[in-house]
Structure formats: structure tokens, C-alpha cells
């Protein structure tokens, strides 16, 4: 396996983790968030600062990183309690822009120079790079997926589903909208924080522009394309959107156009996602099974 494909694979795994986090918020709890990259960035910056300026190791910094992102997620999840859908959508975009400009213009965060010299992750005395980093990311992705899976099987998860489907009905079943929306926000943003921490130690150099709104759109597209609310959807979405640009690579000049056009076509003709209800994949699958759908 070449370093090139390892790099692509690692980035896909990291983005899949972040997409899983967004899926918890959007897919499981039904709350719109268009600024997820902000939390990806918060995680990356937190880990970068803790391991460079703070002198911690990746492993001792990680719980703090998750705590910080989860806490900020909780704080920024508060608007979801009182804002209507469209307002919430735009507010989350705004949060993304604001967080990025804080990174960019506050000297504490390295300003426009970003943060460099982020140490490698050390595991069992071994500096993690190349294949091991891919395996580590895949491991974290597996843990993330496991948590997602456990979450969907927990009462909290069920409560979130109920909220997503019908908030009024859910609250009349004893589900507190405040509590579980915020639970989803904390969980989802902590996952983004995990992805961010991995990203920082993989790239070993981060700057604010990595976490701008286009990244949020990319992550949301992964979730929507893969199939919102499904366990594997975000992973599939990350795979498709991670590999497509590489497939188009030889077409240099036309690559981004084709990518955008494909995204448009996919959302136009499979708005429910590749693994969602009534998707081509599901239909084919059920046809193959031959059973009634």
C-alpha cells in the first residue's frame, strides 16, 4: 500500500469520524448544523495547543480535547433550542465563520501563521506514521461507529430519534427536548473534536482555513449523500467524496467542476442519500433479495 493511498485513506477515516459526529446531530437528533467544521477545528486547535504549548502527550490531551469540544458544542447547541430551522441553519454557518476568524485573528491561536510543529502521536513507544496512523484512525473510526451503534441502542438514542421524528409527540412521551438535543450536540461535537485532534497530529501543521465553511459543506454532503441517520452512511459518504476528487485528478482543469456537478446530480436525484430510504442502493438490494420491500 502506497503512502499516497494511505494518506488519502487516513484523511477519509478522519473525515468519516467527523461526519459520524454530524450524523449524530443531524441524522439522529434531527438538528440542522451547517458549521460542523468549527468543532473539527476546535478539536484540532485544542490538541495542537495542548501538545505544543501545553507540552502534553496526545493521549493525555485527548480527554481534555474531547471535553473542550463537547462543552463548546453544548454551549453552541443552545441556539437549537429556540431557533426555527432556517435561523438555526444560518446561525450555525455564522458560528463557523466566527470560530474560523477567531483562529485566524487571535494571536493566541497562532493567527494567520497557524500552528506548526505538532508532535507525532506516540503509542507503545512507537511514533505513529504511515500505515500505523491509518490503522489508528481506522481504529478510532471503529470506536466512533461503535459508540454510534451503542447510542442508537440506548434510551438516549431512542429519545433522539423520537425528537427527530416529532418533537411534540416525543415530549409528551416524557422525552425532554432540551436534554436530548444537547446530548446529541455534545456527542456529535466531541466526535468532531476527536477527528480534529487526529487531523492535527496527522498534518502536524494546521491553520484556520482548513476548517472553514467549505469543510462544513463537505462534511454535511458526506452525511447527506451517504444517507442521513444510517450507521454506515457517513462512512460511505466520506469514501465517495474522498475518492472522487482523486479519480478526477487526471482531468486537472475540469476536476472541481465535475466534482461540483456530480454533487449536484447526486443531491438532485438521490436527495435521500445513497443508503437512505428509497435509494437506488436499497432498491437494488431489496430486488436482489427478491423479498417484498
Amino acid at each position, binding site marked *: 500500500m502506497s503512502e499516497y493511498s494511505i494518506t488519502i485513506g487516513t484523511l477519509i477515516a478522519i473525515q468519516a469520524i467527523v461526519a459520524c459526529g454530524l450524523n449524530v446531530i*443531524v441524522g439522529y437528533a434531527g438538528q440542522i448544523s451547517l458549521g460542523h467544521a468549527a468543532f473539527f477545528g476546535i478539536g484540532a486547535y485544542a490538541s495542537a495547543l495542548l501538545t505544543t504549548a501545553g507540552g502534553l502527550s496526545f493521549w493525555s490531551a485527548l480527554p481534555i480535547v474531547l471535553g473542550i469540544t463537547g462543552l463548546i458544542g453544548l454551549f453552541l447547541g443552545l441556539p437549537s433550542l429556540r431557533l426555527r430551522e432556517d435561523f438555526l441553519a*444560518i*446561525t450555525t454557518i455564522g458560528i463557523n465563520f*466566527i470560530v474560523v476568524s477567531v483562529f485566524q485573528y487571535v494571536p493566541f491561536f497562532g493567527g494567520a501563521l497557524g500552528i506548526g510543529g505538532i508532535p507525532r502521536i506516540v503509542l507503545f513507544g512507537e511514533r505513529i506514521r504511515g500505515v500505523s496512523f491509518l490503522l489508528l484512525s481506522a481504529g478510532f473510526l471503529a470506536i466512533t461507529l461503535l459508540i454510534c451503534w451503542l447510542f442508537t441502542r440506548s434510551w438516549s438514542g431512542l429519545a433522539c430519534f423520537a425528537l427527530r421524528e416529532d418533537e411534540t409527540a416525543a415530549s409528551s412521551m416524557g422525552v425532554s427536548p432540551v436534554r436530548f438535543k444537547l446530548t446529541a450536540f455534545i456527542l456529535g461535537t466531541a466526535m468532531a473534536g476527536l477527528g480534529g485532534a487526529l487531523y492535527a497530529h496527522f498534518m502536524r501543521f494546521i491553520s484556520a482555513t482548513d476548517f472553514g465553511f467549505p469543510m462544513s459543506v463537505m462534511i454535511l*454532503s458526506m452525511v447527506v449523500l451517504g444517507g442521513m441517520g444510517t450507521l454506515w452512511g457517513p462512512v460511505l459518504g466520506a469514501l465517495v467524496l474522498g475518492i472522487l476528487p482523486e479519480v478526477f485528478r487526471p482531468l486537472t482543469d475540469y476536476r472541481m467542476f465535475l466534482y461540483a456537478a456530480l454533487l449536484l446530480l447526486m443531491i438532485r436525484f438521490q436527495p435521500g442519500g445513497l443508503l437512505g430510504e428509497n435509494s437506488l442502493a436499497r432498491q437494488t438490494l431489496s430486488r436482489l433479495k427478491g423479498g417484498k420491500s
Partner: protein
Amino acid sequence: MQLFLEQMLNGIAIGAIYAMITLGLALVYGILRILHVAHAAVYTVGAYIGLAIFSATHSILLSAAGAMVFCAGLGFLIERFVYFPLLKYPPYVPLIGSIACLLAIEELCRLAAGPYILSFPAQLPFPSFTVGGIVISSTLTAVYCISAGVLALLWFITTRTELGLAMRATSQDMAIASSMGINSHRIISLTFMIGSAVAAIAGILVGIYYNQVYPSMGAVPAYKTLALIVVGGLGSVPGAVLASILLGVGETLLIGYAGIPLPRDALAFIAMIAVLLWRPQGLLGGRG
């Protein structure tokens, strides 16, 4: 005092430019409840088409007319083939479609016209003034006159014509409007076309004002205008105009006096969140 006045004049001009771009978005949101991010792409295309026609004919009037027609068509196509089929899905689906549209059109512009910044060397036939030591350049005069003209025209259309009445009725209650004989499909398309035509003018104006036209010129307006329509009250056109001008002035004064090197987009969103906390329906929003 002179400095302050200069800052104000400049801020209002910037606000007027914002308003021209935001208008179309507010119109579209009012009628379809869609966050039409791709509006910024229409604006970019407007600048390019305007420049192309201008280079060929050296007539700014022809250039504006051509760009307006072209963009109206583009707006119509986006509405018909992207938004209309996606209306029944949750709002993030058309939003992603819209963003994909924006990217695709930006790339098309780059492929068609090259990645370089093109200059838009048109001279607008407007005079410049010097009043009490304050210079009002001809471009500034042009921005004032044209945006005032466009706003007045739009105001006239929406409040004084049957079409405008139908647009407003459709945005308030589409079903009842259609039961009054209004073809709401057509009205929606017309709304898109009008908004897109205004975006074309904005594109040309910005192109001339900064003398540059380039593929990603819509990137910043695309999202900033979202903040502006929220501040104005989602769907409220006068609100959007007011918010744009306030932001233009506010930004200018803040930068001029406080010297904060915050990017303007973040400033717009901070203002938006402040407004949401204080008045969740926006400055001139109707429904709370």
C-alpha cells in the same frame, strides 16, 4: 467631522452594494423559503457576461441589459431544475444543491474565462463632486445613483404593479394566491428572474467599482448575504436593504475607528447573532 462624513458616505455605498446582492436572496427566500446560496454565482456570471458584452460593444447599457437577460435566464434554470424538484425535502437538501450549483458555476466561469482577475475598464458616465473638501468620486456617485435607481424600480414593481402584488400575495399564502387566479409557478419564476437580474447589475457594479472580475468573487457574498437576510428578517425585502446599509456603515465605522482587523464576514455574522438574541424575528421580520 470630515473624516466621519467620508466614512459614512463610503459605508453607505458599500451597504448599497450589499443590498443589491441581498435583495434577490430575500425575494427568493420570501417566496420559496430556500437559502439561495447560488445567487452569488448568478452575480458572478452577471459580472462576466457584462464584461464580455462590454469588451465587444463598449456600451455599458448593452452590457447591463445583456447580463440582466442572461442572469434572469440562469436564475430561471436554477429554480426549475434544482430547487423546484427539491422543494419537498428538508431545507438542507436544496441548500446543498445550491452550494453545489455555486461551486459548479464558479468553476465554469474559471474554465470559460480563465483564472485571472479581469479588469472591467468601463467608465460610468457619472460626475464627481467636491463638497466642503469631501471628494465624491464618479464611481461613488454611480453606486449611489444606480443602487437608488434599482431599489426605486424594485420598490415600484413590488408595491405599485400587479406583478408585485402577485409576488407579495404568493409569498404570503401561495395556495390562496393561486385561488385568486395567480399562476404561482410563473410568479416564482419571475421572482427568481427579477432577483437574478438585479444580481447581474450588482455584479457589473462591483466589477467596475473594484475594477476586477474573477471566478470566486461570489464566495464571500454567498454566505454574508445569508446573515444579512436574517438580520433584516427572513424574507423581508425592506429589512434586507436596511440590514445591508446598516452593516455597510457599521463595518466602515468599526474598521475606521476601532481598527479591528476582523474579517467583514465574521462581523456580519456576529451582528446576526446579536440581532437574533435581541429580536429573533429580525429587524423588520413579520412572523415571530
